[in-house]
């Protein structure tokens, strides 16, 4: 809501410094977004009177003017404008003046003739023809009789460009504040002043409106009140300057006196009005009814719109002439030859207006007010004010009777008032008298333990609403500051602790956390080469996404990681080591909401080659160790490994981690195809860990094991086996063969080449054994090794000679 301070001053004393006004209203609930002093970018422009206009000696299109500007002597100004003649009053930008757009005017010579300033057009003052309809667009603005023609007077004052426009953010519960009068009431209450709001009235000419028009409300639920007044013999012309100025300050473009009056009333009283040309109201009948199936209306903006049955329309005897509370029909409006006008001041159901406006895709000034829920009692002053203004402007003859179809409930909203309860609720210590004063200052009546809201307050429903009125006028910041009493204990949940542990471990391992969008493009699933029949393609779909790129909720967190890897690579970062802890969104059959399991994704590349499959695997193993997942198995991943994302990986460099036969993580190098899809020309490593599953199987407690008391026995062995045998298989055999004295096995060499047959490899281990009962003897250690060789032999691994 944009407010003209000049307009506000009609109703309340508001000459305090603008900064005080702004902060006062902000703190009492009407938030000021910003304010602007009109014409603040214009300086040193005054009213001038042209004394003479003679042709320029060196130009056939320039003229030389002698201008009186209130100084000792007239000044000389050269202009190219064709519309000036001696005796005209014009805006003169003097030497050193500024104009909108940062333009500075300096004296100089034009074709050899001295010019001491500039005569201004409307445009040069930042104005348009809507502000001064009698001016011309491509010439100097010749001041009319609605301007002050005192020579030398500052132009702001002379043409009324001296208002201050304040922009308010009005919350949806206070449509009454979307008006000059509403804000006048708030100003009065905030600063302890009295608002001077008179009931508007008009005189009118004799006539019975019922002979000219009949009104019927068919849907009283959606239209509890409809009032109409008639103006005969209207004279369509521009509104006077003061009205145009105020509309301009409030951001409304002046059109003509009748249309301006409806807008003026809407801005002043917050109640939208509509004006019909009676000629086009067929049968001189107005019916407020639901639209019929298939009915159409051409609205004022020239668009034909199809109506549906739940929409409320204003119809004449034949057709809809307006969409109730939203917009009038094209032929219902005021035209140059309009003779008789019907003013509508009605009240429509907020939710209905809102739905209709939304469905038709047209939010208007009127609909944005009605949809918040206006009170039917507001119809009266609005209609009276409109008719009063018609008389004030001499725009026509108002018929002195009006139509009022009123089915509204006028019971004032009453809520229990208890000063004790309010103090208890706010934590304040205010007297009952102070509270009553606050409430009365905003129009409430307090009697018999009840507070009654004025009709225009549609937001008062419960005790807490009354408490808010008191608190906001007292100033929230005057309330004491206390701390919640009582002891409370809080700690992280096991899941939160677990997730923090995961992050700590990743950070310690050198990985940086990322945050990505939860929604992705369906195409991202193609980029990770996901099979067409993958269950991951069944995603939660957003029906109104911002774009295709953010149109489905991710069923796999891997593509998000790949996108970020790709961005970093394309930003020429030499390496990236990243992780994300984020959710996936998996639809569940028969459930309304999807599952949202947490996933740890890891992604890394390094152009210097320091990252490879095994550094990634090492990082994953380190995290698992940190969060207590032990005794898992690592296998080469196959298509049915439990992770459909396996499609994204190099088939020979991808592993799954299984615990108790359940696949809980996948890791590997992205396939060349995937990397190419992301425009990355280096090896990329990625992993995904299913955290809830891992958490379930992990051991969070740690119990101290005594440090060894006896020395260890170490044996190094080298065996030769088929290249195809995974070393994990050998390790498993060694573990089984050594038994409980095994402390560690370390693979320290894998060799293929000379001295080893084709298709074979030599694998070397360092095996450490230790007992907690005593020093292992050589016999014991050698015995264990014999068992190891036997077990390895069963796998076809022979001791290397």
């Amino acid at each position, binding site marked *: 809501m944009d407010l003209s301070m000049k307009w506000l001053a009609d109703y309340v004393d508001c000459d305090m410094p603008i900064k005080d006004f702004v902060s006062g209203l*902000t703190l*009492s*609930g009407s*938030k000021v977004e910003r304010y602007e002093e009109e014409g603040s970018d214009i300086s040193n422009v005054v009213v001038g009177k042209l004394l003479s206009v003679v042709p320029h000696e060196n130009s056939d299109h320039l003229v030389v003017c002698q201008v009186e500007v209130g100084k000792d002597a007239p000044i000389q100004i050269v202009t190219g404008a064709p519309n000036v003649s001696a005796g005209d009053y014009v805006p003169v930008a003097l030497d050193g003046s500024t104009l909108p757009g940062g333009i500075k005017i300096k004296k100089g010579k034009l074709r050899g003739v001295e010019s001491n300033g500039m005569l201004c057009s409307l445009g040069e003052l930042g104005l348009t023809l809507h502000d001064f309809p009698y001016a011309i667009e491509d010439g100097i603005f010749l001041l009319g009789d609605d301007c002050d023609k005192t020579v030398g007077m500052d132009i702001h004052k002379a043409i009324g460009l001296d208002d201050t426009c304040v922009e308010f953010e009005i*919350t*949806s519960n*206070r449509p009454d504040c979307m008006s000059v009068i509403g804000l006048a009431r708030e100003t009065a209450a905030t600063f302890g002043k009295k608002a001077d709001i008179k009931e508007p009235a008009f005189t009118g000419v004799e006539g019975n409106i019922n002979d000219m028009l009949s009104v019927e409300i068919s849907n009283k639920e959606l239209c509890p009140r409809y009032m109409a007044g008639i103006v005969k013999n209207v004279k369509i012309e521009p509104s006077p300057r003061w009205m145009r100025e105020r509309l301009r300050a409030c951001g409304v473009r002046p059109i003509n006196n009748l249309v301006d009056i409806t807008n003026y009333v809407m801005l002043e009283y917050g109640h939208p009005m509509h004006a019909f040309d009676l000629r086009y109201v067929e049968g001189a009948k107005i019916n407020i009814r639901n639209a019929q199936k298939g009915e159409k209306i051409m609205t004022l903006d020239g668009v034909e719109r199809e109506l549906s049955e739940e929409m409320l329309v204003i119809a004449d005897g034949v057709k809809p002439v307006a969409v109730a509370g939203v917009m009038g029909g094209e032929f219902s409006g005021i035209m140059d030859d309009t003779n008789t006008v019907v003013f509508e001041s009605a009240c429509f159901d*907020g939710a209905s207006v*809102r739905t209709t406006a939304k469905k038709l895709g047209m939010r208007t000034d009127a609909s944005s007010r009605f949809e*918040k829920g206006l009170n039917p009692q507001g119809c009266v002053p609005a209609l009276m004010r409109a008719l009063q203004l018609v008389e004030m402007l001499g725009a026509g003859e108002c018929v002195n009777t009006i139509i009022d179809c009123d089915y509204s409930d006028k019971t004032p909203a009453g809520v229990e008032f208890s000063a004790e309860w309010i103090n*208890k*609720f*706010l*934590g*304040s210590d205010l007297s009952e008298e102070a509270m009553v004063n606050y409430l009365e200052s905003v129009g409430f009546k307090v009697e018999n333990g009840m507070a009654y809201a004025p009709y225009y307050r549609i937001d008062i429903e419960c*005790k*807490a609403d009354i*408490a*808010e009125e008191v608190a906001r006028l007292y100033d*929230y910041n005057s*309330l*004491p*500051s*206390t701390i*919640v*009493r*009582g*002891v409370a204990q*809080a700690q992280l*949940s096991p899941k939160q602790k677990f997730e923090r542990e995961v*992050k700590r471990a990743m*950070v*310690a*391992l*050198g990985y940086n*956390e*990322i*945050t*990505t*969008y*939860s*929604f992705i493009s369906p195409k991202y699933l193609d980029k990770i080469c996901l099979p067409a029949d993958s269950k991951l393609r069944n995603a*939660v779909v*957003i*029906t*109104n*996404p*911002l774009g295709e790129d*953010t149109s489905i*909720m991710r069923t796999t967190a891997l593509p998000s990681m790949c996108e970020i890897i790709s*961005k*970093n690579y394309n*930003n020429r*970062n030499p*390496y990236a080591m990243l992780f994300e802890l984020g*959710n996936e*969104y998996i639809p569940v059959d028969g459930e*309304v*909401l999807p599952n*949202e399991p947490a996933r740890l994704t890891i992604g890394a590349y390094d152009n210097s080659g320091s990252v490879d499959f095994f550094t990634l695997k090492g990082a994953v193993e380190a995290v698992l160790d940190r969060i207590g997942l032990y005794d898992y198995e690592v296998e080469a991943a196959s298509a049915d490994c439990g992770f459909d994302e396996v499609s994204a990986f190099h088939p020979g460099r991808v592993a799954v981690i299984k615990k108790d036969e359940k696949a809980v993580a996948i890791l590997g190098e992205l396939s060349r195809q995937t990397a190419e899809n992301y425009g990355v020309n280096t090896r990329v490593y990625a992993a995904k860990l299913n955290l809830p599953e891992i958490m379930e199987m992990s051991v969070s407690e740690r119990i101290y094991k005594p440090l060894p008391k006896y020395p260890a026995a170490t044996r190094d062995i080298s065996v030769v086996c088929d290249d195809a045998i995974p070393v994990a298989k050998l390790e498993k055999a060694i573990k089984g063969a050594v038994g409980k004295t095994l402390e560690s096995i370390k693979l320290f060499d894998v060799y293929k080449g000379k001295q080893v047959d084709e298709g074979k490899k030599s694998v070397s281990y360092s095996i450490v054994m230790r007992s907690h009962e005593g020093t292992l003897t050589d016999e014991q250690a050698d015995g264990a090794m014999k068992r190891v060789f036997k077990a390895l032999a069963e796998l076809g691994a022979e001791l290397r000679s």
Partner: protein
Amino acid sequence: MKEQLSQIEVLAKQQLEEASDAKAVEELRVKFLGKKGEITAILKQMGQLSAEERPVIGQLANKVRADIEEAISERAASIKASEQERLIKEETLDVTMPGKAPKIGRLHPLNKTLEEVEEIFLGMGFEIVEGPEVETDHYCFEALNMPKHHPARDTQDTFYINENVVLRTQTSSVQIRTMENKKPPIRIISPGRVYRSDAVDATHSPLFHQIEGLVIDKGITMADLKGTLELLMKRLYGEETQIRLRPHHFPYTEPSAEVDLMCYNCGGKGCPMCKNEGWIEILGAGMVHPKVLRDCGIDPEEYSGFAFGIGLERITMGNYEIKDMRLLYENDMRFLEQF
């Protein structure tokens, strides 16, 4: 014999002078003082001496031995010292050469800030509660006193999955789930991702993070809300921090407030950062609407409470002076490694 002893002493000292390393000194020690050394050899001849001479020569021999011992240890110490000096010289580094740091990772600035906020609230006895991001219309709107067609829904442009399922526009949905499942007293915060269909620019993102707080108990007042928020802001921004509360409207709280932080850039005088207002809007809050309590099965005559919601992006951007929200979601390494 006397002469022999003094000759030995002279010789030993001479040779010590010439010894250039620890090894040579050790050899001399063996040569003169060892079991088979020269002094021992002389002492062995003591038997030939008369009873009068024996103590005299014995004393002299011991003195010579002690002198040589002292000379040896002096020489050894000086050789060690010069050896160490040499090593120090040899091993001296240009300490201004670059260090070899292992890479350490960083938490994302949003989560770093979130953890700080969580710690503050854990300290005040608030549990951290999570809830679904894909949420029913009921929990996201209806139960928060925003029935269908409520105008306040306009301020939260919503992504819809279907008529009854949305991407949550606020984590207040978690408050409702908590109130339905837990009897007061309740003290929780619910951080998490929220979604609104705002196009991406320097200050908007269709996905961002909120931290909502909720306190329900007997006798909770608006002054408690004010005190709690002041405490939070002081912990986050320092003891000097000032806030102000402004009346506002949220359908699920009454009274409702928006909270501004005195601009940390200009101290309230007005600058471009605070759009000349001197204050920066930081969060929304209010007393839980009695209707919301009642709908969750909590008697508003017996209990009262407050709620507040903070934008994590806003705090994070303020903390680190990040001017463009997009950086938070682009995850460029050069950005991530700064935190």
